[in-house]
């Protein structure tokens, strides 16, 4: 087997009385799309946040390309090439779409002044080409004025623009329409062809089955099932999610 591009071994995380992750092993190979499944409270979002660097594990180790690394902040995970679409979208409602897309990673010209024109043009381009969301006609619009689906589109556009190796998607389709969801799933497949790996957290097994190569089912912070698409069916996956 090839070395996974990303792997965690025995990670644990406790929030007060809740054991969110309990000695979890998980790995991801280049160009692989993983469906991360499990009921509410299984630890999926904690795993995504840990991979993104905004939650620190209490225990366990992380390997990138087989080399042990320490991921203590969002900056560390950014260096690894991880982009995340968070469940709560992580957008600032009082800022424009453009400013949200480039938040924390603003494009600057000489002397470090913000290059507003370049950011705006890029934002228009990304919104038009990658996520076909209706109704976003003006990138200067405040994010707080957008609908749920449009907000999600902005979060997706941001992750997609900066994507490098690994894309983490935590419930990305919850506010999207059917057509927008199809577009996003098709886009994940296209990224796989460019060797970008994805982890898709979803409650919709049909969506997961459509795009994922492998499925990981979590329960109470542990991995309870790990199977490639060829070896399973939707029914079997459903049983594991519901019964464990």
């Amino acid at each position, binding site marked *: 087997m090839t070395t996974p591009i990303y792997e965690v071994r025995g990670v644990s995380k406790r929030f007060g009385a809740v054991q969110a992750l309990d000695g979890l092993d998980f790995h991801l190979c280049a160009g692989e799309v993983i469906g991360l499944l499990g009921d509410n409270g299984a630890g999926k979002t904690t795993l995504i946040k840990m991979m*993104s660097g*905004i939650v620190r594990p209490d225990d366990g180790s992380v390997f990138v390309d087989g080399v042990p690394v320490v991921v203590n*902040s*969002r*900056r560390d995970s*950014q260096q690894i090439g991880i982009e*995340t679409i*968070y469940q*709560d*979208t*992580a*957008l*600032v*409602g*009082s*800022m424009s779409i453009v*400013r949200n897309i480039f*938040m*924390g*990673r*603003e494009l*600057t010209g000489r002397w*470090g*002044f*913000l290059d*507003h024109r370049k950011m705006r*043009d890029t934002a*228009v381009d990304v919104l*038009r080409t990658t996520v076909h969301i209706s109704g976003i*006609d*003006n990138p*200067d619009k405040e994010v707080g*004025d957008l609908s749920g689906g449009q907000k999600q589109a902005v979060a997706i556009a941001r992750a997609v623009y900066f994507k490098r190796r690994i894309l983490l998607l935590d419930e990305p389709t919850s506010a999207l329409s059917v057509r927008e969801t199809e577009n996003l799933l098709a886009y994940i497949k296209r990224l796989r062809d460019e060797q970008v790996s994805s982890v898709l957290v979803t409650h919709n097994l049909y969506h997961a089955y459509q795009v994922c190569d492998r499925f990981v089912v979590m329960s109470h912070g542990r991995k309870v099932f790990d199977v490639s698409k060829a070896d399973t069916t939707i029914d079997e996956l459903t049983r594991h999610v519901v019964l464990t």
Partner: protein
Amino acid sequence: MSRVSALPKRGFNLPMGEFRRLQRIPGGNILIAFIAIQIVCVAAGLAFPAQFRYLASANVSVMLQAIPTLGFISLGVGVLMIAGEFDLSVGSVYTFTAIVAATLLNDFSVSAWIGALVAVAVGAAIGLLNGLITLGFALPSFIVTLGAMLFWRGMILLLHGALSIGFQPDATFQSVFGGSVGLLPMSFVWLALLCVVFHVVLQHRRLGNHMFAVGGNRDAAYAIGIRPAQVKLIAFAIAGGMAALSGVFSATRVNSITPVGGAGLELQAIAACVIGGLSLTGGRGSILGIFLGAALTYTIQDVLLLMRAPGFYLDIFVGALIVGAAILNQVAWRSSRS
């Protein structure tokens, strides 16, 4: 490129379109209100030069002298409000740091230049301390700086006493910070200069963008790789430093410092920011708005005095102005949404 025209879809004529565009820039509503009030005042001043002495050089000079005191403080407080925090201690810091500069000059023969620098550094340090306590213990800055306001007010009385203190800097210092160019006081020139600098930082530098992000949604900013604590600490330090700067300018202008002089400035500064369209919950505002908010507060007071309103009733009108401006901003904000 799908650039959307600034003109509304319905058939407004050109001036209305310009008006709408003005409304849309940050601080635009307050600018419109400010211009309207100035037009009325100037017209009244021209029509009744004897009764309403708005344009008399003495009046203009007094107003331009008065605005910077609140202006400097409001700039700092406003930047901090945009980053999502308050500083109620700026009034005390304003006096405390000015006394530091005066004591250095009077008792230790340290030049006013160094003294002013030390004062601003002390102000920034006090701001930083407020920030460290606020963020370190995850407390509301409102409470922490309320405590700081009383603490530093008490420290003034403990270390210095209740007597006023003289501040007589050398002639160069006096002319650079307390002089004037024609009708324009140097303090106003410096305020204008700092407004430009602050505007550039907020709108065209990463730091400014991060302040809006952190003030708008701290968790989102953190999730995307911004360090909210670092950004907020810088804003706290700016608020303290600007309060000190204001104190030094005022001390230079009147050549003395009253130990209770700064009381109330913290609330006036927040009021000026609210009038200028800043959000009390952070993440929203503009330097233009802060400046006009401070300027408008004094313009209204000045107009009332010129109309011979009794001085001690002034607060009634200033209070009404604050609430009125807040309502106006809210209504304008809602209508821009629909």
